[in-house]
């Protein structure tokens, strides 16, 4: 197909021809085209369907504010719904499809909605679909959902990579039109660190869209020359294809750079897009202005476009939307559209100007004081009906209409921190008002400086003043003379008495909908938006909000600023979610922490489990074991019968030193630490200030002024943070120093009756670790394997005779191998977290399942640990009556009455008789396991008043899985309740 609407000139590269497909048809365009410009060049006007009425639509704009021309770009996992054809850069092989239509764009079955539009007014759905009750979810809603939505995701994983990064600058300039470029030149020459971000792939803004001249040069030439100078400055970073989408606190801006969207696909390892967090000392909003349409009957047909967009297509992309274009405007500015078109030989049958005193334009007729009252053409404009000043109507045949109701400063980024725009009566538009984000300034059309000359000079001046704030002296760049005619515009928002005149094109909100909202008292702007869905589409109302506000102002009899303002929230334009996630997805969602024995465990074929960010060995299957329980049972039994080794490095370790270290721990822990002898370890329980149990662990005293504290794996970071809080904020006069040593030491539990014998082969012989010399709860520094420094603790989580041995992490792998080798004669087993869990339940030790943030020391059976003889975190509030009632939950052991039954954590406990209901609820099971030692399922749980209920039978109910069994309350210490083994 030939490019029937391609003109001469433009900024496209005609030497690079590109083939592309739209809805299965092949077309060609040039390097520098967008999908929209290339389609227009090929004579394609119909590009999409509207959201609600499925009206045929073509391109309205030439930029990111486009509401109509949305397509699905690419396919498979790369399919990208709702892509604006106006910003999609053409590349060879581009494949796009229209969306929100069935079966085809030309024949869309859902266009039936348009026939019923009179019933489908704003908010009609709030008033119906309520009967019969069940029909909403079963019938109406599914139909509505299917019809709604725009493009589709395939559900396939996005295969592309996304980067994230951080940039710092003195001045961030957003927008590279005349204001932005003038500011960049000024700031760049002053030596400031400058970032110039431009959402387009070309710098220049309106300068490359208009036929204007700057001094003797064309606007485009000046842009090229300026760009070349800026590119040569090391202190200036030019960032085309970069959309600054959000203004966040303290000068931080979010931006997305589209690195490879203009290519068929990214090269391997290269990102599709990069999310930049830009730290700016000052930010200049030079985002230009957005043209506004006029609402009139059937103003939404393909071919009806904004006039500024038409000029952009003509001047930049050498494309006309059609061979015959009518112009409709309320301002002088727009007349240039006709001149630009005619200069390229495009027919302009007439300019329709709403102003009776509009100037003449050579080469075409200006219908003054006229307005368009209807249009025709099913899938594209074929004619407009004009009511001329004298009142009679005239039909003009044309395939395109260039309309303009004036320009609105593009002030989205000024509103992101609740800044409210104010009305400027000179230009009949909102301009940035008070409450701009700190450090933000505005220049050019975004500020309401609507001439090229004002924008250039405003940009330079803004840069000078912004840099002056930072102590950098700059002088305004010398700038060429440019067009400086004042804005001549007479406000015109909509043609009266239209039946259906579109304000929000994408969401199909018409003037009539605004009237209905007014009639039903949705007059507040926010109510109007929410009731009619105005401005809620993918363009966020960039072309529609102010027009609707003007209509509402007419209805309420108030002025526009009295009626309200419209503000914008981030993001400025929609942002690909992939970019916001960056590389932190999939397996890289969180860092992975590996234990010192990980490599060795992998060699053993261990099964790993995520524990926070750690990967820990869960069990170590052996040949012939087909079920995890076989492995776990073996690990438990072998540990209890001989010896087992477990990597416990993940437990938090905090080194506490200083003259007041003991007093400090005495305050942090509920139980006493002041009198712990050197060379001893003590179990410690920490409370929160509200008296609820927080964490438990041990503290080992290596010297008068030196402790090593352990925390649970889950709370390592929290406990450290809390201890720093106590140290810095509550006990600022204590001499205490803290540092985490979690990762510095590889720590292994060696447990079982043969653990001492095994360790005697590892610990160097000069260290006596006999029961007498190194009794239960002893600790000390030793050397192992011929001289390596190590720490030894005689502590036990399993309830067996047990130790923990720690060596510098780099030797952890070798240490594990040494333990296994030395333990061979005892048939040593490595055990994982499952066996660890089984043994701690058998022993009745509480962990995170029991210390769950709602349980107190009393609940845990540790009430006596909370000393009332000293001050400590949590002791005062632990005395509140509700936490000390006679029937508080108490930690108990549970076993099935019928040994064959299995206990499950999460089941609720009911009295043996009576109904199964909340009133009868006695507690719940926190942890359950099969105990190979007892050859029975066992559990820990909380039971109301459970300390006195030993021997009582309860029902363990699990209605969720339709299970109920009888259990008996027993001591939580299933194994060795007297603690003889661990002291052996």
């Amino acid at each position, binding site marked *: 197909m030939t490019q029937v609407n391609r003109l001469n000139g433009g900024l496209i590269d005609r030497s690079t021809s590109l083939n592309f497909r739209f809805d299965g048809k092949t077309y060609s365009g040039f390097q520098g085209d967008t999908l929209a410009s290339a389609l227009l060049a090929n004579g394609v006007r119909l590009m999409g369907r509207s959201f609600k009425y499925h009206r045929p639509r073509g391109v309205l704009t030439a930029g990111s504010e486009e509401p109509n021309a949305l397509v699905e770009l690419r396919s498979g996992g790369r399919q990208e719904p709702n892509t604006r054809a106006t910003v999609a850069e053409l590349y060879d092989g581009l494949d796009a499809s229209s969306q929100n239509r069935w079966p085809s764009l030309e024949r869309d079955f859902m266009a039936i909605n348009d026939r019923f539009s009179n019933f489908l007014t704003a908010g009609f759905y709030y008033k119906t679909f309520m009967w019969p009750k069940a029909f909403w979810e079963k019938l109406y809603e599914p139909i509505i959902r299917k019809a709604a939505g725009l493009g589709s995701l395939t559900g396939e994983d996005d295969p592309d990579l996304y980067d994230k990064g951080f940039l710092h600058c003195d001045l961030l300039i957003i927008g590279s039109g005349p204001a932005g470029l003038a500011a960049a030149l000024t700031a760049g020459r002053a030596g400031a660190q400058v970032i110039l971000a431009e959402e387009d792939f070309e710098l220049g803004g309106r300068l490359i869209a208009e036929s204007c001249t700057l001094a003797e040069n064309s606007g485009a030439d000046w842009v090229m020359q300026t760009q070349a100078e800026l590119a040569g400055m090391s202190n200036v970073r030019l960032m085309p294809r970069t959309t600054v989408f959000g203004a966040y606190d303290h000068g931080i801006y979010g931006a997305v750079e589209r690195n490879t969207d203009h290519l068929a696909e990214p090269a391997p390892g290269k990102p599709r897009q990069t999310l930049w967090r830009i730290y700016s000392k000052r930010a200049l909003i030079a985002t230009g202005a957005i043209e506004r349409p006029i609402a009139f009957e059937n103003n939404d047909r393909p071919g009806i476009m904004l006039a500024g967009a038409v000029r952009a297509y003509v001047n930049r992309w050498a494309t006309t939307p059609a061979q015959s274009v009518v112009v409709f405007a309320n301002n002088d500015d727009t007349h240039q559209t006709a001149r630009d078109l005619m200069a390229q030989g495009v027919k302009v049958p007439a300019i329709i100007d709403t102003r009776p005193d509009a100037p003449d334009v050579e080469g075409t007729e200006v219908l003054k004081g006229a307005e368009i009252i209807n249009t025709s053409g099913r899938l594209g404009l074929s004619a407009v009906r004009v009511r001329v000043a004298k009142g009679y109507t005239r039909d003009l045949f044309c395939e395109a209409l260039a309309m303009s109701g004036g320009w609105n400063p593009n002030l989205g980024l000024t509103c992101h921190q609740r800044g409210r725009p104010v009305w400027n009566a000179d230009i009949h538009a909102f301009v940035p008002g008070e409450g701009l984000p700190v450090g933000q300034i505005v220049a050019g059309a975004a500020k309401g400086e609507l001439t090229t000359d004002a924008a250039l000079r405003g940009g330079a001046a803004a840069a000078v003043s912004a840099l002056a704030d930072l102590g950098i002296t700059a002088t305004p760049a010398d700038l060429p003379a440019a067009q400086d005619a004042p804005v001549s515009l007479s406000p015109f928002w909509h043609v009266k008495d239209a039946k259906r005149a579109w304000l929000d094109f994408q969401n199909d909100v018409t003037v009539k909908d605004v009237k209905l909202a007014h009639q039903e008292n949705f007059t507040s702007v926010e109510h109007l938006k929410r009731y009619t869905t105005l401005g809620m589409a993918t363009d966020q109302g960039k072309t529609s909000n102010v027009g609707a506000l003007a209509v509402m102002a007419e209805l309420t009899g108030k002025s526009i600023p009295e009626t309200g303002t419209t503000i914008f929230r981030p993001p400025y334009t929609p942002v690909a979610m992939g970019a916001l996630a960056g590389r932190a997805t999939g397996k890289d969602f969180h860092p992975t922490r590996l234990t010192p024995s990980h490599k060795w465990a992998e060699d053993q074929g261990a099964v790993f489990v995520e524990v926070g960010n750690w990967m820990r060995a869960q069990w170590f299957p052996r040949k012939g074991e087909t079920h995890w329980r076989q492995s776990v049972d073996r690990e438990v039994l072998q540990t209890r019968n001989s010896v087992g080794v477990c990597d416990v490095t993940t437990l938090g370790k905090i080194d506490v030193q200083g003259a007041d270290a003991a007093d400090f721990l005495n305050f942090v822990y509920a139980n006493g630490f002041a009198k712990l002898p050197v060379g001893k370890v003590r179990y410690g329980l920490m409370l929160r200030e509200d008296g609820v149990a927080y964490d438990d662990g041990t503290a080992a005293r290596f010297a008068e002024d030196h402790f090593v504290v352990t925390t649970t794996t889950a709370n390592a970071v929290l406990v450290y943070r809390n201890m720093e809080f106590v140290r810095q*904020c509550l006990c600022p006069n204590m001499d205490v120093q803290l540092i985490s040593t979690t990762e510095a030491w590889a720590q292994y539990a060696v447990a079982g009756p043969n653990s001492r014998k095994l360790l005697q082969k590892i610990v160097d012989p000069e260290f006596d670790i006999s029961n007498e010399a190194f009794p239960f709860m002893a600790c000390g520094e030793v050397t192992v394997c011929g001289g390596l420094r190590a720490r030894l603790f005689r502590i036990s989580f399993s309830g067996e005779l047990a130790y923990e041995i720690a060596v510098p992490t780099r030797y952890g792998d070798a240490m594990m191998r040494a333990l296994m080798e030395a333990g061979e004669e005892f048939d040593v087993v490595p055990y994982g977290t499952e066996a660890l869990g089984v043994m701690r339940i058998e022993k009745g030790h509480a962990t995170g399942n029991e210390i769950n943030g709602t349980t107190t020391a009393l609940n845990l059976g540790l009430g006596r640990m909370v000393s009332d003889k000293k001050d400590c975190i949590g002791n*005062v509030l632990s005395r509140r009556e509700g936490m000390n009632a006679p029937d508080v939950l108490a930690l108990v052991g549970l076993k099935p009455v019928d040994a064959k039954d299995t206990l499950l954590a999460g089941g609720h406990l009911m009295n043996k008789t009576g109904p199964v209901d909340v009133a009868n609820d006695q507690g719940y099971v926190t942890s359950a396991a099969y105990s190979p030692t007892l050859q029975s399922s066992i559990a820990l749980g909380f039971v109301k008043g459970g300390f006195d209920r030993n021997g009582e039978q309860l029902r363990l109910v699990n209605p969720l899985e339709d299970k109920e069994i009888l259990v008996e309350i027993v001591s939580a210490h299933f194994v060795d309740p007297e603690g003889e083994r661990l002291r052996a």
Partner: protein
Amino acid sequence: MIIDHPLLGPRDAQEFTYLGDASLINRPDWQCENALSEFHDYLYLRDNPAGEHRELWYHEQGDRSWLVVTRNTVTHEILSVELAHDVAKAVTAGRSAK
């Protein structure tokens, strides 16, 4: 947000962990007459002002300092930043003077 650390200069608030009202430094005396009531008010009640708020931030991914940041909760403007350790020392000094 950016917090101007007294020792390190401006740092992204993302490096910090937020705790809450800086009055958490003023922990009551455990042996005072109305200890239960004092601790209740200390731990649970908040001024929660719309405006200037003195609050605790912990530079967890930095130098591990606790900071007292005075910030406007409406505009997010930060008015001053102090080391909490210094603030706490002043509090305890004031207490022993009494």
